[in-house]
């Protein structure tokens, strides 16, 4: 069965410092990969996605992620974080259309806490 592992449950960081949130997936076939952000008491907002092509993907709010097929990783990075980036971040994988439907498989989430 496919799974997504977010290696850090919490990441504390100071404002304006760089940050990396780690994500690994297990799949024997190609997958689509996503990062979503969830602010307190809200739904999920898409940060970026990798479907195919360039392995470096740029998203909203200055975030980017790099797809590494050999390491089955899709780590999220930001060179300089702001207080407003404090939120829960979810990595998700979606297998190609098969079996007649598609679904997102989420990791457990990483809580990013940005301190002044």
């Amino acid at each position, binding site marked *: 069965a496919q799974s*997504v592992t977010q290696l850090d449950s919490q990441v504390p960081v100071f404002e304006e410092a760089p940050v990396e949130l780690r994500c690994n997936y297990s799949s024997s076939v190609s997958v689509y990969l*996503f990062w979503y952000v969830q602010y307190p008491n809200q*739904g999920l*907002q898409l940060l970026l996605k990798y479907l195919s092509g360039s392995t470096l993907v740029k998203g909203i709010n200055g975030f980017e992620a790099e797809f590494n097929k050999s390491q089955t990783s899709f780590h999220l990075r930001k060179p300089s974080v702001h207080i407003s980036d404090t939120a829960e971040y979810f990595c998700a994988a979606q297998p190609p259309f098969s079996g007649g*439907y*598609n*679904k*997102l498989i989420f990791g457990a989430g990483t809580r990013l806490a940005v301190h002044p």
Partner: protein
Amino acid sequence: DAGVTQSPTHLIKTRGQHVTLRCSPISGHKSVSWYQQVLGQGPQFIFQYYEKEERGRGNFPDRFSARQFPNYSSELNVNALLLGDSALYLCASTQTGTPETQYFGPGTRLLVL
């Protein structure tokens, strides 16, 4: 354009009751998926509907059911509620049933006492 909308925003029920949650997809989107997010965990897939037909179901008991209407809105029904059903229920929509970006609504927070 309006995004995915869900109602109600919050709900409190007691064990054994049933609940109906509602979702309206983005205009032009024909597929709706439902996810359950228990506190402290990532969302778990419950159902996907496309063109009013169930296309997929996650590992949830038969107490969970859903349907999609001709206007592509959807209802999630849960019968015989258990304490463990307390969660944030998220609805997501896509244009078609094929793999593409899913757009999420704000969710309905259900508390079962």
